[in-house]
């Protein structure tokens, strides 16, 4: 889909932004370019829509050298989202989104109708259509930025640190929204970030760049964590890559046991018979209320009268990963992670030791996959 052939970008002052990059990006997936600042990831992205012209090599899109296409025309067919959204402050939200359709010569009516659709698609209420960018929050502006990029339904989307300028909570929201959107749209997306967590969360493939514009590794997130190509990648991925790998194990695979779970209507005496230091108190729908320390129970009454320690957090067997389960175990006063189903009812518990078994199983699967891949090419440019 997008192909770099020995592409370099050198500046007259002698700096090299990108050095002999060869890379092929598959159609319909999210490729994340990640690396420290000054590694050439943004330059690489901007060479795809000719915002930066390479000094050597060729970039081709669907087999066609992009230099054969007039730059503005090329860009109208490629969505472009940047860090601070770069919305046009003098245009309403609707007209911002309609920018590319209007540039392509659509009628105003048709362009606005399309823009209204997109506004809804990115999850903004229609009454925002008539507002101006300065009246929106950073997160809302960024959604409009994405909607504008989707204006003419381009097959390719370039995103340059689109979620970096917003606070962590909004960022997580935008990321989740982005994943949902991509499931619906199946665009070919090139995404630049300096945040390895974001890369792992969003990427189907990740290209790690090192300072000086060299590609260090191009791989799936799982393999990047399991088999970093060298010390630089290992260091960039972080000390806790072992824990991060748990992100790729579904919580549903975690083996759970029944554990010391009691309804709040149980008499206190019943809790003393469990022979555990902590019991998990649940309501009539088995939703967890909190942990009760057996040593601190009142003499009589039910568990509803007992002082409860907060849960920490639970993990969901439907959406979360084993990483969330481990975190839940570490934060829980009883050192037990509580797994809940879609309705929030307790399914069972597991401690950190039991969770490490999942890790071992995942390790075995990964090793098997690596052995199977040995003969085949790694995606695109591959490891160097």
């Amino acid at each position, binding site marked *: 889909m997008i192909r770099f052939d020995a592409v370099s970008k050198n500046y007259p002052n002698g700096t090299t932004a990108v050095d002999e990059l060869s890379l092929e990006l598959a159609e319909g997936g999210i490729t994340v370019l990640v690396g420290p600042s000054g590694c050439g990831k943004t330059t690489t992205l901007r060479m795809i*829509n000719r*915002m930066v012209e390479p000094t050597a090599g060729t970039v081709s899109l669907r087999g066609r050298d992009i230099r054969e296409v007039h730059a*503005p*025309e*090329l*860009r*109208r*067919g490629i969505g*472009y989202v*940047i*860090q*601070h*959204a*770069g*919305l*046009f*402050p*003098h*245009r*309403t939200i609707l007209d911002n989104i309609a*920018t*590319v359709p209007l*540039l392509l010569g659509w009628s105003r009516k048709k362009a606005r109708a399309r823009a209204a659709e997109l506004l809804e698609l990115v999850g903004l209420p229609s009454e925002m259509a008539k507002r*101006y*960018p*300065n*009246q929106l929050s950073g997160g809302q502006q960024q959604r409009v*930025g994405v909607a*504008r*990029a989707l*204006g003419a339904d381009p097959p390719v989307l*370039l995103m340059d640190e689109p979620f970096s300028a917003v606070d962590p909570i909004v960022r997580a929201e935008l990321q989740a929204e982005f994943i949902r959107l991509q499931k619906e749209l199946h665009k070919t997306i090139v995404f630049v970030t300096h945040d390895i967590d974001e890369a792992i969360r969003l990427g189907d493939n990740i290209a790690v760049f090192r300072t000086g514009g060299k590609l260090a590794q191009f791989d799936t997130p799982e393999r990047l964590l399991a088999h970093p190509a060298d010390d630089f990648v290992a260091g960039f991925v972080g000390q806790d890559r072992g824990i991060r790998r748990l992100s790729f194990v579904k919580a549903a695979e975690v083996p759970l046991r029944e554990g010391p779970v009691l309804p709040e209507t149980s008499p206190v005496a019943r809790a003393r018979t469990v022979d555990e230091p902590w019991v998990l108190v649940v309501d009539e729908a088995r939703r967890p209320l909190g942990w009760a320390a057996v040593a601190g129970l009142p003499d009589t009454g039910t568990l509803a009268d007992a002082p409860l320690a907060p849960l920490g957090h639970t993990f969901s067997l439907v959406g979360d990963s084993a990483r969330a389960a481990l975190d839940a175990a570490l934060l829980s006063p009883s050192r037990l992670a509580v797994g809940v189903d879609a309705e929030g009812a307790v399914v069972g518990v597991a401690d950190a030791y039991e969770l490490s078994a999942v890790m071992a199983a995942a390790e075995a699967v990964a090793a098997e996959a690596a052995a199977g891949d040995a003969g085949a090419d790694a995606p695109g440019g591959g490891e160097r």
Partner: protein
Amino acid sequence: MNDLLNQIRLVADWLTSSKQWHGDDGIPHRLLEHLTYSGLSLLFAALIGLTFGLLVGHTGRGAFAVASVANLARAVPTFGLVVLVVTLAGLSTTPVLVALVALAIPPILINTFEGVRGVDPDTRDAARGVGMTEWEVLVRVEVPMALPLILLGLRVAAIQVVATATVAAYPGLGGLGRFIVDGLSRNDYELVIGGSTVVVVLALVVQILFTALRRFVVSPGLRVSASRT
């Protein structure tokens, strides 16, 4: 207070006397002269100032020259320049108009330039990124975003031109300044203060015109940001 009332009565008498409304010495004729000088100079200054301001602002080339011209121009005593032009070229309208144009260009030039250059680089980047040609970037993004400053430049230039056109009566040109200069030389205070009043009214009309223009042509989206900062 009494004095102020007297003055107002004086002006009212002068304005309502019928001889002020007829002939070459009447208000309509002088006003027309004044508007012709000011309008023509502003028009030419705008053509030149806007063209170069947009060009320099968009390309970023020549920024230093523009800043220097603007700085130097502010120091020029307009009165001296107009008198010098008349001394050197004789009493005719064209050379004085050229001087008025020259004086009106710098504020338009520098404000247009600053307005375009001040466009957020992210916004400009996004404009190119969505596929605007350089011309479209200029016309659809940079000019609308620079409009508040462009209008400011035009307003300052207009004020300057109206004021200098008034002073141009001293070396012998027409326009509303005639009333003041003639009144001074004849010790006719009524004429001086009546003429001044007409000049003040004209200045206020210019001011109101630009305020209204700003309201009509500047996007509300830009006003929001202006009120926030």
